[in-house]
């Protein structure tokens, strides 16, 4: 079963401020989309709207040709996963329990879930968390906790993965590892991925498509080479950003601000 996540002339506003006027995008299986834009441009709002966690402020979001608002939460949770920007744990919980909790949507109502440890174990292995499995999540460092949350999303094992700043507080190796795993899940297992990120170069290397928001209603969406250009970036971020080719690869460099 392949699911296409699509936005049709989607409008987003927050507290009366229009963030996006009309966004059209179709996320096909195998696509990896990065969402770029300045602070407060609506990246998280876009992701939560695509996840069906808040109503669209205009236009609509569809998942597999059905309006996302028509799904029951549990049906939705079997098809798409969402990584929030922060998960604050007020209570102790072991890493394994936290990861296993994501099996909830795919279990029958009365099942305990102990007999399906394989997806959780796979995810723990992928994100190098096996040695932490019995640790209390409240005692982990910020980066370790973020890896637990990403592993939780992988354990949910869904067709469409939406991640709000998955790279936050990860070290360089784990940033590359997380992006690599997302790309691999898309290209080999036909999953579709949408993530927000601040590092333009990492996004450019690990995406097939891109969305660029400017926070004033403008939104560009399409293949990454068409969207991520120095002209578009400079306009969206209000900052001169230049493309540099290094060893045959395109990089983007923000201009240093002049001394006052």
């Amino acid at each position, binding site marked *: 079963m392949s699911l296409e996540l699509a936005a049709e002339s989607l409008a987003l506003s927050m507290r009366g401020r229009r963030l996006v006027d009309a966004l059209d995008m179709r996320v096909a299986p195998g696509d990896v989309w990065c969402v770029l834009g300045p602070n407060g441009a609506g990246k998280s709002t876009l992701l939560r709207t695509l996840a069906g*966690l808040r109503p669209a402020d205009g236009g609509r979001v569809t998942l597999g040709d059905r309006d996302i608002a028509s799904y029951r939460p549990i049906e939705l949770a079997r098809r798409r996963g969402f990584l929030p920007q922060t998960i604050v744990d*007020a209570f102790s919980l072991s890493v394994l329990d936290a990861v296993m909790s994501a099996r*909830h949507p795919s279990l029958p109502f009365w099942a305990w879930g102990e007999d399906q440890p394989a997806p959780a174990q796979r995810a723990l292995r992928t994100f190098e968390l096996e040695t932490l499995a019995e640790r209390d999540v409240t005692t982990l460092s910020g980066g370790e906790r973020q890896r637990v949350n990403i592993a939780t999303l992988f354990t949910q094992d869904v067709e469409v993965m939406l991640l709000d700043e998955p790279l936050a507080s990860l070290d360089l190796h784990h940033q590359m590892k997380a992006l690599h795993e997302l790309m691999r899940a898309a290209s080999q297992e036909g999953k579709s991925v949408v993530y927000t990120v601040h590092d333009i170069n990492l996004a450019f290397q690990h995406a097939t498509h891109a969305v660029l928001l400017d926070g004033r209603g403008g939104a560009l969406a399409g293949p990454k080479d068409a969207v991520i250009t120095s002209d578009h970036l400079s306009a969206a971020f209000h900052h001169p950003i230049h493309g540099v080719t290094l060893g045959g690869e395109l990089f983007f460099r923000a201009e240093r601000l002049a001394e006052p």
Partner: protein
Amino acid sequence: MTTFASALRLWLVMLFIAAIVVLGSLLLGGADSSVAASWQALRSADPTPMHTIVWELRLPRSIAAFGVGGLLAISGCLMQILVRNPLADPYTLGLSGGAAVGALGAMLAGAGALATAAGAASGALLACIAVFVLAHRDLLARARAAQREDSTDLILIGVMLAAGLGAIVSMMLVLAPDRNLRGMLFWMMGDLSGVAHGAWPVITLLVCVVLAAPLGRQLNLLMRGEESASALGVRPNVVKSAIFALASVATAVAVTTAGTVGFVGLVVPHALRRVVGNDQRVLLPACAIGGGIVVTIADTISRIVVDPIQLPVGAVMAIIGVPAFMVLLVRRR
């Protein structure tokens, strides 16, 4: 990761301990009754005075103590998840204040035990409705307006209500004639000596466990935050309203039976979390049994330690429980 089999083993062991504790509470009494005589009376059907004491005084009281303890512990556990704050207890949302105003008001009017219980029940119900009306946006909202991940408003509403009702209780205590004062203070510290029908708390406890147990997986998700829970298919508004209702009914029945017994609702869930882990499917039934055990032991001690004077069960429990919990807290570090 606790498996269902190991959870079942844990519950059975706890139930076994509970049976021993309840039996002990039936056999132990004041200085003028030996364990052997109590045992005899428990087993025979002869209508001796001892038979009456064991079967008509001690048994309903033990059963009531067990039920009250279980109800408060399960309510505390649910309340901590509802407001996502480990400091919450069954009384966080002002329910005890409402019950106290109702019960003390009935006592002031010179009413008997039944009317006092009715006063407590209606006070608790009114406080609960007030919280729900004031906080219905927090409890029923489908999507959060902002990305707020705490329940500060709900806690503040509860704490404010409790403060207001507490002030009314203070006024009542100051204005009460001396002959009523002792009974009122005992009610507020938790008192099981007036229990006539012990079955209600236990029946309510069973119903609460049966209703809360299927929510276990959803509670585990809700505990980690509403946004991630709703992304995983939980309807936070439905689950939160359900646990608010369950915790309120549990607390109201406990308070109506025994007054405001403190400590157990806060500490038993925490102590058990440290021992059995934080899986609500395991924890909720464990709280029901563990809370019952703790209050039954405390009530037995409060009955016999300075016989014929009876100590308030809440105070006894705190005096023994505080050091015990401190040891548990410090040892893990």
